[in-house]
């Protein structure tokens, strides 16, 4: 039977197992929307296309599946670019479907025409313009395959209007075969033996884990290795949740706002196993002084990550899970021979001493609410089980520091790009992925206004998302830099004119709470969490609180500013 391009598209999405598509209609995609009543998946109408891509991204992070969004040509497509770059930097699998003007008009500056394939070339893993409906099924199949395999990432498919209207025989390609794309998953056996021996020989070992551990589902293997071989673990922002935050081997995040213990540990370790991390400058600080005493092993599925920023001693190109499982198999017999706990005792003692010397902390106050305290209370009230999305800035760092994640896929944050406005739409996506989980967006008063319109989406879909604004009346993180490095020149970081967030919530049909006293924090937060539906909690916090520890940009990790 012949199907139109639009019908073929929906059939492909069904076969790819798509459950939900976040989208916004327009002229170029009207043929697709015309078929939507017959779709196998739910379509969620957002209020801005940036939110569609962030929601697809949040869905992907929370579920581990490929997220999907659908937007029209021209401005609809360009509105997704920030979200595509966000997903690209954090290696999140999403498929972006954009409408395009009819093929005969392409290149003529037609109404709502942009070269979105050209625009997104540097921020997608791959992208396509489908010029012939006969290739459509093939391209969609490849797009999902590329998005989820290897190092995951966003793939964009541009769909001209006439291609969506044209009919052809639908043939589902059972297999995807691409001669130019074959990610290597299996670790090299010789390298595994070499790394295993380095682990046996190490006196001061450390695991430095990144987002790759989460996307490859390597957290169990990692936890096994750490706990059985008695190796302390630190992680990047993207890696949070890959190891239980309540384990005594957990050091917390490393890097610019990492813990004292984590940064001291990486500085003194004689062996570092870097897994699914990419030695980002926010993590390494001054590269030449990063992990100076360590033999570095780097496990990553992307060869370009290896030897890019830091030169490592043993590269291991492989899927993180397969590599760590191979290490487990190699090292399990050693447990009978080696007493790792005994061997690492002096090192673990040292690490524990650092953690005790400068734990994550803040100066409590009776008068003003400390933002860190808000996150601590949230952690307590949710038993560490919530999915936490964040905006960007201080709120993001405090969420990362003070919410102790025990499981992967629970911390959704724009790590690589640092996109303000990410958290709320990502929370929406996550709530669709996990309808029964508590989803909270820890927000700043600046960032939340970047996609505040999604209150409508959240309310319309009866989502129980709780937005907790750590309202300091500042673009806090920038203000912190101005305070510390620019002589307190608070230029354009004070958010004087602000909406009344409680009334704003109400205007959208959500519920609003305001908290201004420490004494009422716990009670009102609990009440807000217990309130069904979308809720904003506007917490008026200490205005000039800083995130500590802090390693100034470009300094060595040991040069930490402490509380």
């Amino acid at each position, binding site marked *: 039977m012949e199907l139109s391009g639009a019908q073929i598209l929906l059939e492909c999405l069904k076969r790819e197992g798509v459950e939900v598509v976040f989208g916004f209609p327009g002229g170029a995609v009207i043929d697709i929307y015309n078929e939507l009543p017959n779709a196998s998946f739910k379509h969620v109408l957002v209020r801005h296309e940036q939110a569609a891509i962030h929601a697809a991204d949040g869905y992907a992070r929370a579920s581990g599946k490929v997220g999907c969004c659908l937007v029209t040509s021209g401005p609809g497509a360009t509105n997704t670019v920030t979200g595509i770059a966000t997903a690209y930097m954090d290696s999140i699998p999403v498929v972006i479907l954009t409408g395009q003007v009819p093929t005969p008009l392409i290149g003529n500056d037609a109404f709502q025409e942009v070269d979105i394939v*050209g625009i997104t*070339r*540097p921020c997608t*893993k791959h992208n396509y313009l489908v010029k012939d409906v006969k290739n459509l099924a093939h391209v969609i199949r490849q797009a999902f395959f590329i998005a989820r395999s290897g190092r995951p990432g966003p793939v964009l498919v541009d769909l001209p209007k006439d291609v969506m209207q044209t009919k052809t025989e639908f043939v589902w390609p059972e297999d995807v075969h691409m001669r*130019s794309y074959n990610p290597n998953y299996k670790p090299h056996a010789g390298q595994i033996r070499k790394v295993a021996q380095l682990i046996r020989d190490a006196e001061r070992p450390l695991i430095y884990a990144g987002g790759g551990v989460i996307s490859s589902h390597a957290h169990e293997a990692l936890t096994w290795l750490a706990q059985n071989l008695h190796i302390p673990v630190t992680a990047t922002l993207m890696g949070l949740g890959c190891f239980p935050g309540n384990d005594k081997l957990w050091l917390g995040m490393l890097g610019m706002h990492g813990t004292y213990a984590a940064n001291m540990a990486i500085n003194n370790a004689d062996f570092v196993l870097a897994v699914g991390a990419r030695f980002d400058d926010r993590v390494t600080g001054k590269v030449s002084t990063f992990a100076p005493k360590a033999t570095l092993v780097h496990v990553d599925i992307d*060869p*370009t990550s290896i*030897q890019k920023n830091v030169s490592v001693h043993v590269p291991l190109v492989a899927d993180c899970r397969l590599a760590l499982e191979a290490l487990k198999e190699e090292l399990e017999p050693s447990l009978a021979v080696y007493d790792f706990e005994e061997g690492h005792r002096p090192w673990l003692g040292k690490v524990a001493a650092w953690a005790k010397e400068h734990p994550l902390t803040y100066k409590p106050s009776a008068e003003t609410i400390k933002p860190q305290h808000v996150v601590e209370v949230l952690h307590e009230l949710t038993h560490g089980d919530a999915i936490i999305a964040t905006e960007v800035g201080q709120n993001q760092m405090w969420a990362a520091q003070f919410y102790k994640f025990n499981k992967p896929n629970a911390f959704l944050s724009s790590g690589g790009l640092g996109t303000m406005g990410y958290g709320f739409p990502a929370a929406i996506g996550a709530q669709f992925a996990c309808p029964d989980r508590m989803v909270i967006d820890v927000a700043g008063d600046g960032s939340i206004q970047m996609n505040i319109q999604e209150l409508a989406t959240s309310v319309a879909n009866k989502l129980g998302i709780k937005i907790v604004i750590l309202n300091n009346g500042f673009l806090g993180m920038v203000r912190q830099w101005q305070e510390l490095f620019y002589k307190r020149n608070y230029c354009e970081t004070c958010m004087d004119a602000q909406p009344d967030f409680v009334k704003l919530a109400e205007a959208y049909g959500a519920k609003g709470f305001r908290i201004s006293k420490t004494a009422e924090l716990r009670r009102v937060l609990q009440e807000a969490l217990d309130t069904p539906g979308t809720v904003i909690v506007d917490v008026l916090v200490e205005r000039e609180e800083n995130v500590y520890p802090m390693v100034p940009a470009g300094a060595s990790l040991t040069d930490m500013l402490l509380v």
Partner: protein
Amino acid sequence: MRHTLSVTVENEPGVLSRVAGLFSGRGFNIESLNVGPTLDPGASVMTVTTEGDEQIIEQIVKQLRKLITVIKVVDLTEMKSVLREMILLKVNACDANRAEILRTVDIFRCKVVDVSIDEITIEATGNHEKIEAIIGLLNRFGIKEISRSGMVAMKRSMQG
């Protein structure tokens, strides 16, 4: 150090800008770039000459391999290979210089492909050193125009 990379790519629209965009976006430099069809109608070969230390070249090769439409990347600098570039040069040729120019053409086994009363157009083929030498020698007569193919390259049959 200069490296010559042979990059086999899927023959599809946009592939050139994917490769070129990779170089510009990551701050790698392209000295020359040549693109042409291969025996396989579905594939093209790009020959890229670039400069950089070992770590940069390693990144360039890996980043190229990471592009979905790139089938194969070979660093010909690491093996025995034949490297050739073709250039066309339009040289000032007054009567006094004509003989000397033609002698140079002869020595380097170039070809004269066009002449007029005061210009000679020369076709020359060779490796990097030879091409630079020809340009160097003809420069003193005044080169009015130059057009270069960029390097094309092939691995030698016998390695080792």
